[in-house]
């Protein structure tokens, strides 16, 4: 039972934009749930590590990409260190997609969209698509035979639906900027939203589980 202090005036709804934003932010994730140090006991399976593995792989992808960006587009063709960094970028991307798909498989079989988690599922799918698009612009930026073939093939598909009119895959100067600036930014925002939603709703309980009554 709480003691009521009758001398305090009622708290008015804040009119300050700053206060309102602060209130909204603090309500995005339940208190203590952003980085809890406990988790539901039903999370006892290795399938649960694939989300964080995907995130970790994404970080390695970005880090290796940053090093490639330091040297520029032609660097890795002439430097053996640069070529090694390119290899890091390629293999971290393969791992990223592998972990992400295993994560998707797990979430499907757990029907993880239950309990108001549809948006978590959907942001995950959008992140998957965004990743494919980002990888695609990366392949176009290689400045080698693969880029030549991929661009001249992809233009047919994209032109058939009018997209090629403003997204020119044969223009490396445009594709490179989509790959290192535009798409990573968009993908980053989607991934952040996805993770926030996970923390907001908590990890989905087992199918047909009943909420345990308080002891």
């Amino acid at each position: 039972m709480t003691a009521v202090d009758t001398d305090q005036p009622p708290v008015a709804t804040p009119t300050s934009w700053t206060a309102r934003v602060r209130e909204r932010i603090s309500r995005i994730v339940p208190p203590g749930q952003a980085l809890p140090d406990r988790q539901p006991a039903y999370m006892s399976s290795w399938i649960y590590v694939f989300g964080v593995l995907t995130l970790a792989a994404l970080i390695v992808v970005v880090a290796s990409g940053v090093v490639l960006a330091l040297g520029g587009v032609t660097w890795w063709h002439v430097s053996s260190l640069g070529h090694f960094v390119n290899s890091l970028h390629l293999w971290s991307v393969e791992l990223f997609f592998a972990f992400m798909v295993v994560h998707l498989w797990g979430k499907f079989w757990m029907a993880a969209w239950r309990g108001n988690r549809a948006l978590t599922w959907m942001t995950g799918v959008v992140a998957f698509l965004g990743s494919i698009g980002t990888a695609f612009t990366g392949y176009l930026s290689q400045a080698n035979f693969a880029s030549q073939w991929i661009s001249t093939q992809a233009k047919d598909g994209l032109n058939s639906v009018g997209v090629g009119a403003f997204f020119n895959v044969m223009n490396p100067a445009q594709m490179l900027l989509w790959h290192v600036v535009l798409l990573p930014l968009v993908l980053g925002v989607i991934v952040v939203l996805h993770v926030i939603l996970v923390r907001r709703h908590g990890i989905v309980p087992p199918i047909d589980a009943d909420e345990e009554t308080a002891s």
Partner: protein
Amino acid sequence: MTTSTEHRRAPRAGRPSTPDSHGFATRPYDLVKEFVVALVVVTLLTVGLAAAFSSPDEKAITMRDWANAAPNDVVATAAGELAGTTTSAGFGPPYNTAADGAALGPLKLQKWAGVTIPLDSAQDLVLIPLAGVTDNSALTDALAAWQSAGADQRTQWASDYSDALAQAPDGNPDSVATGDYGPVPVIAAGFLTLANTGGLEGALTSSGNFYGGDQTKSLLLLADGAYLEDQARARNLGGDQWGMMNETGNYPGQPWMWLYTFWYQVPPFSTSENADALVWGLMMLLTLGLALVPFIPGLRSIPRWIPVHRIIWRDYYRDHPRR
């Protein structure tokens, strides 16, 4: 105090509502440590794979490479550009209005997007680069003859020469049957010479600008020939070879593209002129389906019908048997 972010609904008939995850027994777990371990594991895996297998880097085909490896193809392509019969010349939007392009049922998306990358194949890919050649008087005369001829005459010369090349053994210009091809043979030969000097990409990309960066013209020209595709098909990169999934050599490709490229392998897509638009439309539909799984009856129930989850949560189900 509840940490629930859920709006409680009355259970639907036959489907219990999902309880709040914060109402279950918990145990300690170190998320940050888990993340750091994951990062270390992925980094080690990446370094190991990169050191063991490296990454592909097949050199781009230069115009000079093309001219050396397949000179007859270069000549045939130049003639085709002048005749307006190449892929780029007849493409339609966004390069020209030679065709309407693909349609998705009533949706003429390619046409509606308009000509935003205007290109005159004959002029931009062949004649303008050649106009810069100064030490070949025969070529200069041929170009003048071409420019002063009427459109129908040009098309006649170029088409006849294209056909003659196709008939010649190995497409060799030296073995072409005699005929009236006007200045086209000299122009096409001059084009091959320009490609051999290594100056063609520059002429196409910079075209009086200084800074290049946009390789559209060079790529369209290269793709108008047969050599690029021949090289790609030899590496299993062709559209009907599941090419979208593949990489040169034995390097890992893009396994996640399997479903997109699958449709191109089977009818009706494999035999359709409109395959690109059809496959795009189908994949957009399937992707929408994937995103909306939570709302699609039947699809969203598959995890119940095929209970893989009973393995995942076996510990929980063992400790909490169904009443």
